[in-house]
């Protein structure tokens, strides 16, 4: 046996005191189990029954093929919410959320090619699904009692969803009409967020990426950078991992910086600044000149 160090009594007592103080606010009496049951099970069950009824009456067929923004789309979402509520295991819940993000991406793809006007709404719905997925990934990884395998599983779900979505969006960007390009670009930025919060690529990239990128995108500078990528990505499915790392770190940032800097904004600012300055300087110079000539005379 190895030596068994004992904690200091002082530390033991102090920590107990802190825990007891904290416990008064943290440990709140729970509502009876039956109430919780009602809250957790009954409501989804009622919703499930309602959705099932609608689906059997034929409205469901329309819902299944609906796109974000369509009236029937709400029904499709309700069915998904029920599916999520009925999934109890955290890992399984995560996979359901990943599937839902897949669906939103498929709808964006359809909207981009069939009805470009619906693409921004589809892109917003995709962003919402990504946010839900990312929150669930963080929640699972942040649980203090989650074992390492669960944490890893959450990361794997996030990583594989991101890899898959990147490939799809790159391909979509290549083939979709011009009207849908902004929506696809927005979705691509959202895809980048499918990472655990402790992923180093998420923190530095997330804040500065947003605002400059939006202004720079219309310049079309990034397009040539992405085109060869799509060609490469489309063929092998396993390869994107390598590209993924290099893509967000280097290419978009370079594109973005060059965009705003290259915009001839600097030139117009310089011109007006010079003109008034020239006028002002010349005026006093002329006024001073006569005065020295006048003073010797005086």
């Amino acid at each position, binding site marked *: 046996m190895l030596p*068994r160090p*004992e904690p200091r009594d002082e530390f033991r007592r102090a920590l107990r005191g802190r825990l007891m103080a904290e416990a008064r606010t943290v440990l709140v009496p729970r509502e009876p189990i039956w109430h919780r049951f009602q809250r957790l099970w009954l409501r989804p069950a009622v919703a499930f029954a309602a959705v099932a009824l609608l689906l059997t009456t034929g409205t469901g067929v329309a819902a299944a093929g609906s796109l974000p923004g369509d009236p029937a789309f709400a029904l499709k979402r309700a069915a998904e919410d029920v599916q999520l509520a009925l999934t109890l295991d955290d890992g399984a819940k995560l996979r359901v959320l990943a599937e839902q993000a897949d669906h939103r991406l498929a709808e964006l793809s359809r909207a981009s090619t069939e009805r470009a006007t619906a693409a921004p709404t589809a892109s917003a719905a995709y962003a919402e699904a990504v946010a839900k997925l990312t929150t669930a990934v963080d929640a699972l990884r942040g649980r203090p009692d989650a074992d390492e395998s669960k944490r890893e599983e959450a990361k794997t779900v996030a990583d594989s969803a991101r890899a898959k979505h990147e490939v799809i969006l790159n391909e979509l960007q290549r083939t979709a009409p011009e009207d849908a390009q902004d929506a696809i670009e927005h979705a691509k930025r959202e895809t980048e967020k499918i990472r655990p919060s402790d992923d180093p690529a998420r923190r530095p990239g997330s804040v500065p990426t947003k605002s400059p990128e939006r202004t720079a995108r219309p310049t079309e500078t990034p397009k040539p950078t992405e085109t060869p990528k799509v060609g490469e990505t489309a063929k092998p499915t396993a390869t994107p991992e390598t590209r993924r790392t290099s893509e967000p770190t280097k290419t978009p940032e370079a594109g973005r910086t060059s965009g705003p800097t290259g915009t001839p904004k600097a030139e117009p600012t310089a011109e007006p600044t010079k003109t008034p300055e020239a006028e002002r300087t010349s005026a006093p110079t002329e006024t001073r000149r006569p005065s020295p000539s006048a003073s010797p005379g005086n």
Partner: protein
Amino acid sequence: MVRSVGVEESPNRPPDQAVTSGERAGEDDRALAARASGGDAEAFGILYDRYMAPVYRYVFYRVRNEAEAEDVTSDVFMKALRAIPRYEPRQAFLAWLYRIARNAVIDRGRRLASRTQVTFEDALTHDPGERVIDPDQGLLAGSDASVVRAAIARLTPLQQEVIVLRYVEDLDTKAIAKITGRRDGTIRGIEFRALGVLRGLIPSREAL
């Protein structure tokens, strides 16, 4: 004697450890945890009294010094307090606490951006308290505590965990397998390799 998590107690356990047995305190862990998650702070206090020392020791051997061990132990119990409503009674309470401790140690290691390291000076600054040495445990018992601790710090995190649970907490491989989420046989393999590494790092009694 080897024990399982939170069930039996070891006869060579120090007095305060004997109190940690569920049977002797009158109420078992699951009942206390259920009461705690229902808002009973004192029930959590009893669980704390039972398991604070094992958690502290578990952490102690995996961080650099006593101060860090206290920090992480505080963190573990604060997290346990907040997470207790989610505790599932099918898992032994101590195993659950070890899991939280394990994640806390890993998270701290990540935050420090490098693997937990113990220097020989760090190891020497701590008085390991009561030493219970089994003369049959040739390698570990025959060496100075500080040397052993510094040597443990050279192991991989998983090897450290197995060695501490096995040779400090006196758990059997089955219990360790439950805590670490690995198979019994895997734990034996890890233990075997860890002892091999320690053998190279710790001078034997004869050599001394």
